[in-house]
């Protein structure tokens, strides 16, 4: 196991470097001259332009800029944006919002997804099973953008149940965007649980449990559910990284000052350092949780052995 983790960690390095270089190169290609744009209508003095250009290494070739950037990054220096603000400050300030949003989304995924999946799975082809099948198909088909507006309009505007924008109401303001962000994965969790439960209901150990007269509840919760949750747990784990990406749309529509909103604003404002910093972080989160999930898989299911 230790060797497996070490090997996976080593493989992470080229992927991290590659992804951040890819974004670095794309940001490098962003149009316009951000230094000159700083001055607005009044042109900056040539000496100031020259100094700033030098400060941000903008005269170096692409690869050298990147090497310098990674060198700084390894020392924990994410650099500054063109206004002199530390990128790390932006990240630490915005991150809690996105983490809360992701936590709410995962809570919805787990609670609604698993409950719906179990109820569908214990009576395969029953009424509730068909309800879950149809509703998950519908949810998967609704683009997150549309779902956000539907939720905002019906639950927020018309019924007035939830705040429709901002984070002024604490955790409460995360409920609606969290639900929207979770929707697609929620449907997937429900289907995954359903398939897994339906499969395990036919297993020998479930028949044994029934035969020795255990109450139905215990058979489902203790025996079937526990064994059925392995693929679900791994999916939810891997989904954390994906949720961070989905946060761009959700945070934009619901006006949440999180990391997704920050990276979107930065792309629009051509703040290269912010874009590269945040994307590198997102890639790291994605890769990290994928690794955790793979290890967790072996821990939860003793039949799986790496090497």
């Amino acid at each position, binding site marked *: 196991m230790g060797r497996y983790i070490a090997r996976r960690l080593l493989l992470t390095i*080229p992927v991290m470097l*590659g992804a951040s270089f890819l974004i670095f190169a794309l940001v490098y290609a962003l149009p316009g001259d951000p230094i000159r744009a700083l001055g607005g209508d009044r042109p900056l003095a040539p000496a100031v332009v020259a100094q700033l250009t030098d400060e941000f290494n903008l005269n170096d070739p692409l690869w050298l800029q990147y090497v310098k950037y990674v060198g700084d990054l390894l020392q924990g220096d994410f650099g500054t944006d063109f206004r002199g603000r530390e990128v790390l400050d932006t990240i630490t300030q915005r991150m809690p919002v996105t983490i809360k949003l992701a936590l709410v989304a995962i809570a919805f995924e787990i609670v609604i997804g698993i409950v719906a999946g179990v109820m569908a799975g214990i009576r395969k082809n029953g009424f509730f099973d068909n309800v879950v099948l149809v509703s998950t198909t519908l949810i*998967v088909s609704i683009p997150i953008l549309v779902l956000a*507006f539907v939720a905002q309009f019906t639950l927020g*505007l018309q019924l007035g149940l939830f705040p429709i924008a901002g984070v002024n109401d604490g955790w409460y303001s995360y409920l609606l965007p969290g639900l929207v962000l979770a929707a697609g994965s929620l449907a997937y969790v429900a289907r995954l649980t359903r398939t897994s439960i339906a499969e395990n209901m036919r297993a020998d150990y479930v028949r044994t449990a029934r035969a020795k007269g255990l109450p139905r509840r215990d058979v489902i919760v203790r025996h079937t559910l526990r064994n059925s949750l392995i693929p679900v747990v791994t999916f939810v784990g891997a989904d954390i990284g*994906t949720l961070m990406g*989905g946060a761009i749309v959700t945070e934009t529509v619901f006006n949440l000052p999180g990391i997704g909103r920050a990276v979107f604003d930065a*792309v629009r404002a051509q703040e290269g350092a912010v874009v590269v910093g945040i994307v590198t972080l997102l890639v790291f989160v994605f890769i990290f949780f994928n690794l955790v999930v793979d290890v967790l898989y072996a821990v939860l299911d003793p039949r799986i052995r790496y090497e």
Partner: protein
Amino acid sequence: MSEPNLTTVGHDEAGAGGVTGATDQPGGGRQNSLWSDAWRQLRRNAFFWIGALFGLLFVAMALLPSVFARGVDPRSCSLSNSNGTPSAEHWFGFDQQGCDYLANVVYGARNSLIIGLLAVVVILVFGVLVGAISGFYGGVTDSILSRIADIFYALPLILGALVVLRSGILGRGVVAVAIALAMFGWMTAMRLVRSQVIAVKSSDYVAAARAMGASDSRILLRHILPNAVAPVLVYATITIGVLIAAEATLTFLGVGLQAPAISWGLQIDTGQDLLRTAPHAVLFPSLVLTLTVMAFVLMGDALRDALDPKQRS
């Protein structure tokens, strides 16, 4: 050319098996191929027909928009009708500029379809090519190509396409959006093909083809890749829907199609400011967009059920 070769080898080496095989074939008895089985399964699936119906409707809308727009020109507008609500004459009402909204929503289908199809074709060509090479040759080639796929996989689709489109290296417009989406969407197709190739690479019939001197490209094209068609087809069908939704999202975020173009993403973007006063401005493009995505998801789901023999009972 090698077809007769195959049969003679079969007769020489596996006497009895070859004979029964030969008597079965010319008899013309119904051959239960994967595809005929799948079609029989598919025909009985109501979800498939719902999906196919909406899919056809959407394609027809993209091809003949004037019919569905009831002959109304989407660009002939009158400000006096601004944000008019739906009526018997104008089913979807009017947008902010006073243009007939039904016509505008209908004319938006074409760009969505072109982007969805173009992106999926690029994804398939690139994904199948890279996946086949990676799985077939293995070793260092596979390691490098798989790591490159990992790199793209770690970047969220919307985020990657957002940065590419904003950088302007592809320009703006329909083709640029399709390419940007394909750039960050080819990895799953590649992984699908790669795993299929690895799975059948070591099978006996591939070894037999190789022993008869078939070239690498012939083995790949004739013997290995046909196995990957089913999963790739399922994936491609669902992905068209996903790509159409992604296009609307990118356009909504301001980096996809631009104003003179007619697009659902633009309509939703303009409509979001009117959510309180004229909710139909967001409702109708969202509804049509959702039905379109649903059409492809339903067809893809039904295809998967039909093509996966393990699920059959």
